């Protein structure tokens, strides 16, 4: 276990290095961002002053080297636009995004599991058809479109929730629903098919033969055995959720890391972008490691390699 986690950590470092180099190269391939930080009336000389002040006059390998040396010490430099250390800027927004993603995921799982299980139990019933059509519909809508429609209906017409902001659940209801729909649809469908597969397995026939009630069979035996693919799917959705947050946060003016990311890209704020990318990748690596642990708990046969 410890060895496994250590290896995993080593790979994570390699992965982060690769990602940071990719971001660095992509931004610099189109020329340095100096132009964005000189006033509109600035002259050529002003341009050179700013360029030197931001360090963009140094050769690229040197710039990247400096970045790495500082990053190892936990310093991701100062944001070009905010003129402040980047890591705090990112970390103060990270909880909001994690909260949004967690609520979206909880909402998705809370709705998807019962729907999927019921659909599997009542295969080809009206309920099954309706549930699976809904799930499919959720998968066919662009995120931004769903978000805008939800705002127009629930915030402008019905005024049940605010367009943005608000306290507690009101602030999260629409964005979490928007972000969670895709995960909900996928999880519902996977739960259904995974349950269908298990429900016909021999050990369940034995259980039924022993006189255990159908719900008992489902909850105690089938769900446990069908859980692994479901957990896998949820793990895969995490990356999608954090990615989807970029659009959801823009639509709902939600103060999270996705908006910061877009802002960093738009302003070619390389240090800020590096910090965002690092934080997101690191959170995902941690979450995925956590999921592996859940795996082991679910099924002792799963060996971590």
């Amino acid at each position, binding site marked *: 276990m410890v060895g496994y986690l250590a290896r995993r950590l080593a790979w994570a470092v390699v992965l982060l290095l690769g990602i940071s180099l990719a971001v660095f190269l992509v931004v610099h391939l189109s020329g340095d961002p100096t132009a964005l930080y000189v006033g509109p009336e600035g002259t050529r000389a002003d341009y050179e002053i700013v360029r030197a002040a931001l360090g963009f006059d140094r050769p690229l390998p040197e710039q990247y080297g400096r970045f790495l040396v500082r990053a190892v010490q936990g310093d991701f430099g100062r944001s070009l636009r905010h003129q402040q250390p980047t890591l705090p800027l990112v970390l103060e927004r990270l909880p909001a995004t994690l909260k949004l993603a967690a609520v979206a995921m909880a909402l998705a799982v809370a709705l998807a599991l019962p729907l999927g299980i019921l659909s599997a139990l009542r295969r080809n019933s009206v309920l099954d058809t309706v549930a699976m059509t809904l799930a499919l519909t959720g998968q066919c809508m662009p995120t931004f479109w769903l978000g805008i*429609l939800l705002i127009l209906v629930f915030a402008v017409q019905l005024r049940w929730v605010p367009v943005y902001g608000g306290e507690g659940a009101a602030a999260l209801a629409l964005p979490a629903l928007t972000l969670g729909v895709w995960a909900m649809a996928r999880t519902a469908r996977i739960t259904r098919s995974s349950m269908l597969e298990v429900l016909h397995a021999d050990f369940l026939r034995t259980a039924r033969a022993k006189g255990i009630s159908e719900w008992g069979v489902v909850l105690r035996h089938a769900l446990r055995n069908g859980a692994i693919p479901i957990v896998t799917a949820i793990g895969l959705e995490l990356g*999608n959720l954090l*990615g*989807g947050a*970029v*659009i959801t946060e823009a639509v709902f003016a939600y103060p999270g890391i996705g908006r910061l990311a877009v802002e960093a890209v738009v302003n070619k704020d390389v240090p800020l972008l590096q910090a965002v*990318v690092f934080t997101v990748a690191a959170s995902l690596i941690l979450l995925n490691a956590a999921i592996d642990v859940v795996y082991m708990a679910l099924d002792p046969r799963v060996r971590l390699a």
Partner: protein
Amino acid sequence: MPRGRRTRALLGSPGAGLGLMAVALVAVCALSPGILAPADPNEQRLLARFTPPTTRTAEGDLALLGTDQLGRDILSRVIHGARTSVLIGVSVVLLAGSVGTSLGLTAGIRGGMADHLIMRLADMQFAFPFILLAITVIGVFGPSIRNIILVVGLSTWATYARVVRAETLAVRERAYVDAARSLGMSVPRIVVRHILPNVSASLIVVATFGVAGAILTEAGLSFLGLGVPLSIPSWGGMLAEGRQFVDTRYWLALSPGVALFVTVMAINLIGDALRDALDPYLQTRATVDRF
């Protein structure tokens, strides 16, 4: 499953039947938009902006689905938009599929260090919300169909690689590959003769969902202002441009929205049916990247 039963299973599902019809219609639009579209999709008639559907414009032409903010014919733009969506969807899948398949095969056949490296690369892709990279790359290099295909394609190959690798490992363990090897067959021949036919079913299913995912991704990029250039009609672009009119001039976004929705739904239905018919064990592995 014997081929005859597969076909019947595929066609027997009502969803798949409808899906096939819808996809056929989109394909016809994509192949010959010029013949079907009543007007040039980029022709502007500023004095006939915002003509509602089924009414005549100020100039007397009938605009079946209405005109947009520059007086362009929406029906023509939706028909031409099919070409963009199909082009992006198919190219992305071809790119991601060929990269993913080659890497997956290499990993599966070679094993060892190559396997390890490739699978960690795949992990890296899964572990990272590619939209961050996509907005960076497209923001920097400018939005074009080529850049979108490259970015989306190169960020979705990992699914293919995983599927192909898993299948390759399974096939490799089967006796006949060993037999082939002992008969002195070269590795490429083993791949072509024995492994590819066995993974093709899984690949087709993954690819089907990949097309749907790519079409949705293009729409998301359009929302961020990073979609295909405006001179090329695309559903995502029309939907993004029409979003501010959704409650005042609904028709700007309605038609491309319906086209996109129906197409993605149709592809998903076909994908489901294919999966049920070809490879019932794949369902938990296929994933469509999208945002």
